[in-house]
């Protein structure tokens, strides 16, 4: 009985340790994987996590897009961007809507911010002007 219990516990421990999950970014200490800057802006941060569970943090969405040029996206399990105006909330990049507006400056000059719903991004566009992109569109734009 005890051996069985110990075995199951060990198996469970293995399961737990193999779980690939995003970790919170340590703002003010973490460095952007692409541009080396310390990450402080909670409105524009981004990260991806590989299938093996290694997380790469970025200070801005544009930095992550530049880094994604160099790797195969199918090796990743998470690509997430900060939800603008909602600190510590990250959203899936694939389903997010992006606004490039000079009125909302981002750390690396492309002025990109991310939102969940289209209604939200349209409201921000009305207030701040700018252009709306999907994840695929903004990646294509910055890749050229």
């Amino acid at each position, binding site marked *: 009985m005890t051996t069985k219990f110990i075995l199951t516990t060990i198996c469970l421990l293995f399961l737990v340790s193999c779980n690939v999950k995003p970790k919170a970014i340590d*703002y*003010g*200490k973490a*460095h952007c994987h692409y*541009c*080396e*800057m*310390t990450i*402080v*802006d*909670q*409105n524009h941060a981004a990260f991806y996590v590989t299938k093996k569970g290694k997380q790469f943090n970025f200070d801005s969405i544009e930095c992550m897009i530049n880094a994604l040029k160099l790797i195969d996206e199918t090796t990743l399990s998470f690509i997430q961007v900060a939800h*603008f*105006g*909602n*600190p510590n909330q990250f959203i899936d990049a694939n389903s997010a809507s992006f606004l490039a507006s000079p009125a*909302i*400056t981002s750390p*690396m*000059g492309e002025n990109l911010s991310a939102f969940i719903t289209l209604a939200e991004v349209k409201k921000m566009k009305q207030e701040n002007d700018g252009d709306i992109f999907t994840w695929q569109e903004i990646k294509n734009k910055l890749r050229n």
Partner: protein
Amino acid sequence: MSVKGFLFLLLFPLWTYAKTIKVCKTCKVTELSSAVAIAQKGDTILILSGVYKVQNLIIKIPLTIIGIGNPTIDGGNKGTIFSVNADNFSIQNLTIINVGRSYTKDYAALLIAHSKHFTVKNLILRNLFFGILIEKSNFGLIENNKISSVSLSEAGSGNGIHMWKASDIVIKNNDLSGLRDGIYLEFVSNSTISNNKSYQNLRYGLHFMFSDNNEYHHNLFKNNGAGVAVMFSKKIKMHHNTFIHNWGSASYGLLLKEINDAEIINNTFEQNTIGINLEGSSRINYTGNTFLRNGWALKVRGACYENKFTNNNFLNNAFDLSYNSELNDNLFKNNFWSEYTGYDLDKNGIGDVPYRPVKLFSYIINQTPETIVLLRSLFVDIINFSEKVSPVFTPDKLLDESPLMHKKL
């Protein structure tokens, strides 16, 4: 005509055209906002000592605002305090406190936008989000200000002096602490930053982004998250600065990324994890700098060409130089290396055998940072020595042909 009479005539137009408005609790005008409302172009507003509540005061005409007896302007933690959109504006001798904080808006103690010829002098700014925010403005002087905040929480912090799309600005003798970046420049040109003290800031003491043709000298950067970051900029002159105590797993005194045609002269880098971290930076002259007791004096991370390192002092660094490529296109000449063990038989002050600043172990550390625990082991000494005798991994031409025997003063 008497001198007095002459002076009277000379100053007479001033009395007739520019008037002075006094603000105090017992004056005719008791609030700063009403003084601004009645002021005409070119007037001077004198604020006598006391505490004044001010919220988003918009100034659209040339004015001079001067405090007498150190009055305090309290923003009550609600948004921007002064918002200036006027040429020939001047603000002096005030204490401004309690700027509002926001995740989405850049609130500042003093916002100057679309303005020319402004002076910001002798202000004390405390409990801030952003301190002085300058947008699309030119020809300004920012002098003798003390800007501080408590940026313990990362996101609730703003920059001390933040400039965006500005040119011809002089920033001198300011004291900046407890902020996100002490001074931040984005799309700024022809500006000079001198004699400032920037310390205990969360991120950088000074930060350049996309800013060409600027100069900074005689500044002190101490105990910041990292000292100075110069990124995506051309023709920056950096001289006589001190970078000290920037410790952290990937912290540095000076970060250079995509910097070309710069000059780094007579600076001191003391006790930083990395003295200078260079990436994609070319055609830079490094002369007369002192690297003292750093983890890495120089960390070269690829795409750095035609840099010249001459007459520098490398004193007691764990690593003088780390390289991650096998190619070298940079020149090292006439530097003093404290680890140099060569001799000088002809006594001309220049060592007779070249010095190889890259240790083999620094390559291993680049690959596997954890191996740092072996830094002082005998094994590492042996591989470093063998590499020194017959270089296999380190770039063959990466050496100082004529190292100095004595420290450059």
